[in-house]
């Protein structure tokens, strides 16, 4: 190799490598979305309204936190099984079950059950890959954190954020039908978990939490009905309507009050003094819990 050749290599090599790196990035970003998962037809509710409604469906972390706050012991029996995840072969079922596992992962993380959570992480990765959002699920980092039982705050943060990113990506890429299914799956599992815990520990706060799901279910029904042209969605709407109907005589009253504010350790803290109060009979509560078990098990083919 003469000096001239050496110089050409020195000058051209970085240019070649920088071009290669750029083209690789392009192929990562431009993966294909199968037609079967794209939204079908014109939506009755605008994308913006859909986004607002979606944001209005609270995180399953909060349900898990409520359960843990009651000092109720952890039970693996409450969780959805992960041993036969391959039975969910359509994008519809996969997105729905992904939501269910997401809620279970929140419950596991809240109780620091990292060993059990490994099964859920693997199943979530599989389902997320199937519906082409696996790139947002940082499985390797989550697995490492779970295996080493280290930095549980990071585990919670990354898993919750990954689910938010999957949801956001689906909504931004004309696949909000799958985002809706993930939300529906997470919601039914949250209600199921609350109901199972309530059966063993009939705490008034849990009773109220189940009753106030009336507000969230109302929003969720709007999201689901947006896709009623699809046969699978019609079937799911029918299942969720059976729960929705049971909530008809659950009432939520509001007691008005003025907020107060104080600074605690340099942080501004605002206390709301308007209160919501849920009125739900024992019989209705039992029916809602029973129906949530039926619908959730139907989704999981249990």
């Amino acid at each position: 190799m003469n000096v001239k050749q050496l110089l050409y290599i020195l000058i051209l090599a970085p240019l070649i490598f920088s071009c290669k790196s750029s083209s690789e990035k392009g192929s990562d970003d431009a993966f294909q979305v199968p037609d079967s998962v794209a939204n079908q037809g014109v939506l009755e509710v605008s994308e913006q309204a859909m986004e607002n409604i979606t944001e209005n469906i609270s995180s399953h972390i909060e349900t898990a936190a409520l359960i843990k706050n009651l000092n109720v012991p952890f039970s693996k029996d409450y969780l959805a099984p992960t041993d036969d995840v391959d039975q969910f072969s359509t994008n519809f079922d996969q997105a729905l079950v992904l939501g269910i596992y997401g809620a279970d992962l929140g419950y596991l993380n809240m109780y620091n059950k990292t060993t059990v959570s490994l099964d859920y992480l693997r199943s979530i990765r599989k389902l997320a890959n199937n519906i082409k959002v696996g790139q947002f699920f940082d499985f390797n980092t989550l697995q490492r954190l779970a295996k080493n039982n280290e930095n549980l705050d990071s585990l919670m943060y990354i898993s919750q954020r990954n689910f938010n990113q999957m949801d956001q990506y689906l909504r931004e890429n004309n696949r909000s039908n799958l985002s809706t299914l993930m939300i529906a799956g997470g919601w039914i599992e949250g209600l199921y978990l609350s109901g199972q815990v309530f059966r063993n520990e009939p705490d008034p706060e849990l009773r109220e939490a189940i009753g106030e799901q009336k507000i969230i279910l109302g929003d969720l029904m709007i999201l689901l009905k947006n896709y009623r042209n699809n046969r699978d969605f019609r079937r799911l709407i029918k299942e969720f309507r059976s729960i929705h109907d049971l909530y008809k005589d659950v009432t939520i009253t509001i007691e008005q009050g003025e907020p107060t504010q104080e600074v605690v350790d340099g942080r501004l803290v605002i206390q709301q003094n308007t209160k919501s109060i849920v009125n739900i009979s024992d019989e209705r509560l039992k029916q809602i819990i029973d129906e949530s078990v039926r619908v959730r098990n139907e989704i999981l083919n249990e």
Partner: protein
Amino acid sequence: MKKLYIIILLAIFATGFVNLKPAQAQTGEELVNICSGLADDATYLKDYTVKLSGAAPGEDPPSQKKSLMLRKNTQYRFTICSSRDYPGRAILKVYSSSKLLVSNYVVATGKVYPSVDFKCQKTGPYHLWIEFEDGKEGLAVMVLSFVKKL
């Protein structure tokens, strides 16, 4: 030979030049990570990134609206981080039924807090507005975290 050294030095310089990257601007993603860290011991729930252009003279400051569900008997933390690459400092306002409940900006003192805790007693939808002080251009991230059940 001397000429050859000069050419090699020029080539090395050219290589370095090709690999030089412009100073990186702070991205929304970086802000989310920074902001989540600032939320201390609270558990991350959601984040919102807001980028707004500056208001023209005489115009109201542009704002972005989001909607979110908060639950009774829960203490939440709103942490707001403004990008260093833009002049605007973010101001958060949370409304319930058109009534202002929470803001990181205290009018009486003119102080802007980086985070504010909200002890929620009413389950329902809340409306979140983010704007930038004096209508300046800005990029900010708001992280909603769960502090504890009350």
